[in-house]
């Protein structure tokens, strides 16, 4: 491993020590910590399982461990790792302690469709996608067991990355994209938290003319407790960002949804939007939505909207008058509400996986 990487990892560990757990995470910190720490110890046992990269290599991708890649990639990854203001204690601990990080390099101007099982994440390792200039990648990540590794996407110049992930069994997820000039990154996610869940998705626009979107659907039910952070950080000029979050709350679900748009001093002519819609289907749900904006210059278009409410009575009436029970009618409305997010997905591959989540 390169010197700078080692230093950054040490730095992260130090930051993690100083940091306190956020208030909401404290409620179930015990659970998260156990899984994060105990599995890290067993990492060496599982590494053998991830060694099999043949499927990925078949598509012409270079798959390597982090310590194997050249210093050129290492420095890029180091910068991605170093930018950490949105990470909490658990993210930092996982990212600094993990030793079996895997790097997947997508060669320039290659079009790749990738469906893979995230074994790296299951082993607590970080996964780095480095898309070189002009490449076009569609990625579908399948969840394996209780995954808790982080994923970093480094989008080279003029590249385009569509990334889909679903979280059903995991307890945490951290996704970060670093966008270079003219690149586009779209994160699509479908989350159904089982018990405890913490997700952070960060898109940082470091250079000009980039575009980063997050589309997220969320189905919380039972006694699940979840925190979702969706962040668009604009540093470069002429950047575009769009966050759409649609969630359904059922049972005694407890959830916190924090959206964040940050527009830095130099980030002129940015266009950023944040929308959080939540459909509440039970009277015992506890939802907290916080769409935040921080804007440090004036040549911007930034807006956000949030709605929270229950099923529209007139819609319910319409469906019930056609012979459906209340339960069925609610289900249809709920599916329609979530499905509408899929309309904006360009990639057919991801669209099928996305719609699959609603069945």
């Amino acid at each position: 491993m390169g010197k700078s990487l080692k230093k950054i990892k040490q730095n992260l560990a130090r930051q993690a020590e100083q940091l306190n757990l956020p208030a909401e995470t404290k409620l179930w910190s015990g659970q998260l910590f156990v899984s994060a720490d105990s599995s890290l110890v067993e990492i060496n046992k599982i590494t053998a399982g991830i060694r099999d990269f043949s499927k990925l290599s078949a598509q012409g991708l270079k798959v390597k461990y982090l310590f194997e890649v050249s210093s050129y990639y290492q420095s890029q990854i180091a910068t991605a790792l170093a930018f950490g203001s949105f990470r909490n204690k658990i993210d930092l601990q996982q990212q600094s302690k993990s030793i079996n990080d895997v790097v997947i390099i997508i060669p320039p101007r290659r079009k790749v469709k990738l469906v893979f099982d995230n074994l790296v994440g299951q082993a607590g390792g970080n996964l780095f996608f480095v898309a070189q200039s002009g490449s076009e990648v569609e990625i579908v990540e399948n969840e394996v067991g209780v995954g808790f590794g982080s994923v970093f996407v480094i989008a080279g110049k003029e590249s385009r990355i569509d990334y889909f992930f679903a979280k059903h069994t995991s307890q945490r997820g951290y996704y970060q994209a670093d966008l270079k000039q003219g690149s586009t990154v779209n994160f699509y996610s479908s989350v159904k938290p089982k018990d405890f869940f913490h997700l952070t998705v960060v898109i940082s626009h470091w250079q000009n003319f980039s575009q980063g979107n997050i589309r997220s659907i969320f189905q919380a039910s039972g006694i699940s407790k979840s925190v979702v952070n969706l962040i668009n950080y604009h540093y470069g000029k002429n950047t575009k960002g769009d966050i759409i979050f649609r969630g359904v709350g059922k049972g005694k679900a407890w959830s916190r949804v924090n959206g964040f748009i940050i527009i830095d001093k130099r980030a002129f002519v940015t266009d950023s939007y944040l929308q959080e819609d939540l459909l509440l289907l039970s009277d015992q749900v506890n939802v907290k939505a916080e769409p935040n904006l921080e804007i440090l210059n004036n040549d911007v278009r930034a807006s956000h909207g949030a709605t929270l409410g229950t099923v529209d009575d007139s819609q319910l009436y319409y469906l019930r008058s056609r012979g459906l029970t209340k339960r069925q009618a609610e289900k249809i409305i709920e599916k329609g509400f979530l499905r509408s997010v899929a309309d904006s997905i360009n990639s057919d591959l991801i669209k099928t996986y996305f719609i699959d989540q609603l069945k």
Partner: protein
Amino acid sequence: MANNIDVNTSKYYFRDPIRYVFRTPPGLNAQVVREISKQHQEPKWMLDLRLRALQIFRQKPMPTWGADLSGINFDEIVYYLRPHQEESHDWREVPKYIKKTFDRLGIPQAERKFLAGVGAQYESEIIYHNLKEKWEKAGVVFCDMSDAPRLYPELVKKYFASVVPLADNKFAALNSAVWSGGSFIYIPKGVKVDMPLQTYFRINSPTLGQFERTLIIADEGSQVHYIEGCTAPMYSRSSLHSAVVEIIALKGARVRYTTIQNWSLNVYNLVTKRAVAYQDALVEWVDGNLGSKVTMKYPCVILKEPGAKADILSIAFAGRGQHQDSGAKLIHLAPNTSGKVVAKSISKDGGRTSYRGMVTVDKRAKNCQIKVNCDALLLDEKSRSDTYPLMQINNNQVKMEHEASVSKISEQQLFYLQSRGLSREEAERMIVAGFLDVFAKELPLEYAVELNRLIELEMEGSVG
């Protein structure tokens, strides 16, 4: 765009030396609190309450969120001063440029003298006096808060610190310990006070305190509009202003509280404002923040019984070196309650405005309707605008909407106005005034005129 707007902040810096009958030494301890209580000839229970609040103040940590408060030194502040009753200040002694500012703002003669520190001499209060008599006949109480514990002990005992408890936050505790001044208002059942009550009606009381405490009790079916503060730059001798306002709107009452504050640029303005609305009551906060170095102010309404309504309108204007951290809080505890928040902010010259809002809907509060709308206007590239809305919903029968947008003055609008013969600066001023129009409409005429002129001055950058 920003180049042609230049603010001359020196207009805030005028002061008159004041002689005191009494002042406590700087710093805060039990002795100071006892002394304040003694000066007000308070009953013992009030002193006990003050001492309890002091203890809480010492235990509470400084808030780590929001604006930067590191500049406050609690040991340097003089917590109580009582100005000389027969001040030798004369209107003629007031510097010319201040008079000129007042002229340009169109401030009433009565208020001018008060602002310039010659309030104690002001005697021509005949009109106000007549009005006062009319209210007193109806049973309306409107007096200095400092006298209230002595004059109306039952009411004060029952309602004081019932809305903002001593341990609410560090600055509420500080205020509870050292408060002096402010207004005490009680409106009896069914009485409708049609003229707005204004602070300068009781202009003879000692100057506006830095730790004022206001308590408004509107009994069943009553109606009142209270106006505090003024649009003219107010020079404060102390760097910390920490007030507490409590409003109790009983069944069917309507209370409107209007504030426009324009503190001098050295002031930390940390105010706790909260109202409780009982059945079918309506509470309206109209809140304007223009001056001060740091403002942290979040008017709050607790909708405690069914049918209660809240309406909060807040504007903030931040210039160079200012941070206006304002917002609104709605706490819905009962079914069929509704709330509306409109927040507008303008930042220029590197100023920073933040909207920090909170909407909480309890399990019991079914069929609530909430609408939050915040707009921000950024006038130049150095300025900053943040929005931190928080929505906490604990049941599903709620209609909640939140909208926010941040933008600069649109070139299209400027072009339109310029093509009609206005200069660019005039056009900008007009657009800003239009942006704040919702707010100006809610003010009584004279204040609306003052506000418009003040905004014009801010934009123009030259006073006198």
